């Protein structure tokens, strides 16, 4: 949009339309800086809160999402507004400038020479070319100007950076709107449904691999899973930490593993045995014969007692598997907790009569995080573009140098602009040196 000006002397510029003023404000860098500082300040405050509280009350709140959206809008408008001028800067730079304009450039110098020669600008063009610039000559208002440029695509850096951040934000938004996050898992032989993804996953094997350093180090648990939909296998594979199973934009990640003790419960009065039942930590199994629950507290693969007299595990090796359990009555009253060793039946006296508990085995179960993120390709593309954009912005320094010759003072006027001020000064030194050399100075 061009501001209207009749050109009459003394007449002030016509005011911009309100819409233009609003757009200008929304796309302004000033607003961008304020929004970034605001996001930083809120984030600082949020990290003083407990993580889940911060996620629930700050990061996912309407106002935080609103500030993010406002930042995205600012970025978008800024990108749109700058696209045209940047395009012109790269493909249609102003090659013809006045001598005054050269003198006003961030770096400029007058190089006086004693010998002029037939074509003084030839030396300037040669010097600019030696400086690694692409040279052309143009007739300007004050005569011929030699124009040299390099790294012009660096101008696109900020544009690409801004577009990449928009892509990342859009990808995250698209992923959140079309995706889901849930959990599932089990031991070998179990399966679980994921209604959000319309599939079922059957676990066929869960194995524990100890690290070479021994069982003191948290082992790696690998599970084999078959994913089916309407009875048809859609994916089959191994899942381990850092090795998710991916299909249709859905990923199944190994989250953690659990121990699953196998328990039999016998009524000593009747000799009737239930089980073996497979119980996770903190599971409750209702034993009808005695009207009570068997509550599993924790499983210790390599049982020992610590200094405080509490059960613990020396390692992940199954050297001495012990289950900590508790009898809980329907009203909530509990018996003191007890310990159950592998294959050692234990008679437990309860208010409702005795029962015999035996841990007859145990196995591992895998716990998974399941998510679908269709925004992943956007996020990847955005990430790659972000690095490329930053590299172009900061390391491909666009340089523009203009040179004119003033026959009256027998001086070359050389002016240049670049974001890399030190680099530009070095380039100007080189050009000056080259001009002097070519002029036999």
């Amino acid at each position, binding site marked *: 949009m061009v501001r209207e000006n009749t050109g009459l002397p003394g007449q002030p510029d016509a005011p911009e339309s309100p819409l233009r003023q609003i757009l200008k404000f929304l796309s302004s860098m000033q607003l961008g800086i304020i929004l970034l500082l605001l996001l*930083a300040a809120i984030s600082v405050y949020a990290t003083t809160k407990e993580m889940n509280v911060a996620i629930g009350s700050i990061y996912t709140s309407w106002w935080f999402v609103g500030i993010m959206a406002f930042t995205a809008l600012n970025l978008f408008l800024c990108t749109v507004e700058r696209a045209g001028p940047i395009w012109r800067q790269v493909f249609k730079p102003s090659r013809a400038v006045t001598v005054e304009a050269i003198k006003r450039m961030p770096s400029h110098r007058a190089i006086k020479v004693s010998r002029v020669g037939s074509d003084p600008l030839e030396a300037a063009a040669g010097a600019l070319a030696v400086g690694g610039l692409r040279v052309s000559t143009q007739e300007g208002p004050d005569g011929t100007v030699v124009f040299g440029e390099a790294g012009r695509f660096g101008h696109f850096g900020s544009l690409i950076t801004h577009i990449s951040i928009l892509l990342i934000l859009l990808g995250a938004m698209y992923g959140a709107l079309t995706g889901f996050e849930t959990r599932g898992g089990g031991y070998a032989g179990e399966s679980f449904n994921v209604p959000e993804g319309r599939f079922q996953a059957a676990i066929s094997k869960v194995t524990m691999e100890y690290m070479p350093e021994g069982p003191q*180090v948290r082992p790696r648990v690998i599970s084999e899973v078959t994913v089916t939909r309407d009875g048809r296998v859609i994916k089959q594979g191994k899942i381990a930490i850092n090795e998710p199973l991916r299909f249709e934009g859905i990923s199944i*990640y190994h989250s953690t593993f659990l121990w699953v003790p196998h328990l039999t419960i016998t009524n000593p009065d009747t000799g009737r045995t239930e089980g073996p039942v497979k119980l996770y930590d903190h599971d409750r199994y209702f034993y009808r014969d005695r009207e009570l629950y068997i509550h599993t507290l924790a499983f210790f693969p390599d049982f020992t007692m610590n200094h405080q007299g509490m059960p613990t595990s020396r390692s992940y090796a199954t050297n001495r598997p012990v289950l900590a359990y508790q009898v809980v009555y329907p009203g909530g009253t509990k018996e003191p907790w007890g310990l159950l060793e592998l294959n050692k039946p234990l008679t437990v006296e309860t208010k409702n009569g005795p029962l015999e508990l035996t841990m007859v085995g145990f196995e591992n179960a895998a716990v998974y995080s399941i998510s679908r993120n269709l925004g992943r390709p956007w996020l990847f593309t955005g990430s790659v573009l972000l690095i490329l954009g930053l*590299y172009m912005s900061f390391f491909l320094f666009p340089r523009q140098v203009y040179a004119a010759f003033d026959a009256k003072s027998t001086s070359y006027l050389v002016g240049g602009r670049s974001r890399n001020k030190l680099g530009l000064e070095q380039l100007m030194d080189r050009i000056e040196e080259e001009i002097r050399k070519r002029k036999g100075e």
Partner: protein
Amino acid sequence: MGGLIQVDPTNLMIEKTLFTLSCLIYLLAAVGYTVNVFGKKEWGGFAANTLRVALLVHTGFLVMRAVNVSRVPFVGHYEFGNLFIWATVLVYVWTEWRLKDKYHAVGAFLMPVVVAYIAYLTVIPALFARITVSSAHNPLPPVLQSFWLKFHVSSSVMGYAGFSLAFATALMWLARTGLESRPDLLKASPFINKLAVSLPRQKTLEEYMYRASVFGFLFQTVMIITGAIWADASWGRYWGWDPKEMWSLITWFVFAVYLHARFTRGWHGKRTVMLVMVGWVTMMFTWLGVAWLLSGIHSFG
């Protein structure tokens, strides 16, 4: 130095010796740069060479550490701290080599920062019982056994190195500006006068600060991106709003504001210097503050 990995006693001794030696040589280089900045110009070259030797010895330490833990030494405060110091010195040595001896004065401001980092790994845990920096040789937990670990940590230390260099330059700018505003002090003390003369002009320092910030910013971006990709493979989501992630992003925001303000608003001088200093503080908080004051999923960092 106990740990779950059994280390050959000779290797252990070599590792400890190389670490102690590199710390001492870093200290000597810091002294050399300081003497240089106070007018003894002949100390500049000595300090620069000493720093290069220290870097070599420190490289030897990192290699030995890698041999002793049979993996990249990138995990925990001790290993990360060492890598961070090494990267900071590497970036400075490279800059010094590129810019020649004109910038020996920067070493006088950067090396105290490096010595402070070394103190965090050595002296501070000895003085404050609450701070423990374990040098135990432990294997990588399964969650860290990822292709992305090397890229994430490498980019992180390079980013931090750039920001440390920018911070040192910001300190120089403040020193130079402060001294300029006290001509009485410069007249009264030839010692202080020599310091003022040794410091580059504010414009040059701002340019240097900008370059170091840009370097740090690029690597900080790579660090955040590689961390997000790794988190996606490991935990099933790119972003978990974990305090470490958030503070990395806060640092990124601060430097983004600095770069934009400089670029498009034409900010310079004290305002940009203060932004860089705030950026360094947020970076340090990401490294240390989050570990000691906040909790999150980056417990291994």
